[in-house]
């Protein structure tokens, strides 16, 4: 069972890595080098230039990371179903949940490696220009990886819908709502109509709360991240990923292919 999941995970990762990742990284490196040249002209002091590049760099990684999650998550399983590649695997004596778990872990791995490579490129370029080691790199990496793991798992779940538009719409909707989770909570508390308050509350609890992973302001202001906060974020992400995995496995099991 575990060996089958590992095989599918590795195959999924290879599929993504062999064809899609390289192009994304090349584009990212080009944009990053362009940024360095651009901010060199605009900033007044080296420290300001450093912060600006760090800030914009992280924002670009966030944007690229989301696109990668959307791209990988929406195509991996969906393409296999549409191209009937999945039939050859599902007609083997194995459960559908094994296939889903393998795909889930493979896409997660691909998304994580993608983001990690982009972060490393940014860090190396920063070091080459300013000769300063990025102190909070491990925290940025950890929180971004958790965030993109959830995004990828979510997109993979939505990719089981019959329509790509539904998959994209739900993914973007959940990411936007999840990024504004605290506002949604306030909205639930402030709503006058009980039903609206209840529904908003349900949405708040179902949609992933991405604000737990947004530590960019702390990094930019050289604030430290407490280990307890990190543990909480890891626990939350772990539970949410398990929920996504269980939901996806159930949907795939019930799906007529």
């Amino acid at each position, binding site marked *: 069972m575990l*060996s*089958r999941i590992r*095989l*599918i995970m590795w*195959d999924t990762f*290879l*599929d993504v890595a*062999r*064809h899609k990742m390289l192009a994304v990284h090349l584009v990212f490196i080009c944009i990053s080098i362009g940024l360095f040249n651009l901010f060199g002209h605009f900033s007044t002091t080296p420290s300001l230039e450093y912060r600006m590049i760090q800030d914009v760099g992280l924002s670009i990684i966030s944007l690229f990371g989301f696109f990668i999650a959307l791209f990988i998550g929406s195509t991996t399983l969906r393409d296999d179903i549409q*191209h*009937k*590649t999945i*039939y*050859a*695997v*599902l*007609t*083997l*004596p*194995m*459960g559908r949940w094994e296939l889903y778990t393998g795909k889930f872990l493979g896409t997660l791995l691909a998304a994580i490696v993608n983001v990690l490579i982009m972060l490393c490129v940014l860090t190396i370029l920063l070091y080459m220009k300013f000769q300063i080691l990025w102190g909070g790199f491990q925290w940025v990496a950890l929180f971004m990886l958790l965030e993109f793991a959830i995004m990828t798992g979510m997109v993979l779940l939505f990719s089981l819908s019959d329509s790509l538009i539904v998959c994209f719409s739900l993914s973007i909707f959940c990411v936007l709502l999840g990024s504004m989770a605290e506002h949604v909570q306030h909205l639930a508390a402030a709503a006058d109509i009980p039903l609206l308050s209840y529904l908003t509350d349900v949405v708040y609890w179902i949609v992933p709360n991405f604000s737990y992973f947004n530590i960019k302001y702390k990094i930019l202001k050289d604030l430290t991240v407490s280990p307890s906060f990190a543990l909480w974020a890891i626990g939350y992400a772990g539970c949410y990923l398990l929920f996504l995995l269980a939901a996806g496995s159930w949907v795939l099991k019930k799906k*007529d*292919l």
Partner: protein
Amino acid sequence: MGELLVAEKISKVVGWLKKETIVDQVSITLYPGQIMGFLGPNGAGKTTTMKMLLGLTSITSGSARISGAPVPTPASRIGVGFLPEAIQHPSHLSVGEYVRFHARLSGLPDHDSEIEEQLRNVEMWDYRDRPLRECSKGMRQRADIARLLLCRARLIFLDEPFSGLDPCGQVMLKELLVSLKEQNISVLVNSHAAGILADVCDRVCMMNHGRIILSDTLEKLLTTSKTRVIAQFSNTAAASDFAAKQSAVPHRMQEPADIEFLIEDSCGLNELIKAIMAAGGQLTAVAPVTLTLDQLFVKVLSGQRPEVTGGNA
């Protein structure tokens, strides 16, 4: 000989508000080493029936067992392989990697010697390092057959395997099917290529509108009750005289002094033969009239043969 596959009145109903039955009480029995062909127009329910048996689509009612295990449990898929129509193979794998990946997934040892043997069986060993995306359709199908053989499949489902293949590819696949049969591997094949099915199948099932409308061994299906008799006479005048006397029997004149008769029953056959001999004619052919599978298919679909067995295969 125990049944390998038994389906009892399996049905598939789709739709939420407007229910539609796309497979209606289909029953099939398949024995080891048998090749069964599914023939029917597009939308007849052939592929859906296969998918239900493979556990890819749920069965609305009825039950099926493969090697005694109920469908759709994973146990029912032990030793089962599927080659879907128009499958797009993983583009990131080479032929060898693809076959090895499936062997490992099946929990079988992926010994190089076994992979080599199966790829050589389908004449794909020389292309083992070629990416699947660069292989022709025929090559990819052969790689799939190698995959199924490596996974020690005892029952193979093929969905439209001949579509899009050139004549050489069709002949090669046909030979492969025959060799599978020789290895006691059962095959359930969906196809529109009636001529090819007639060459390889033991049994044929015709489906239309989700139901099996005709099913039997190929021999029984294609044999009719009619007999063709060709008689030769010494000259055209003698042939014409004899034909005139036998006007009640359907016949047609052939050059130079031959007559071809079509006899409906064996009693009429004896009388006709006696009459030919008495008139000084010579019998040059007496043979039962057989249909081709294409002719039978067209006849059944156009409603010219209502005496169908129905329901069971």
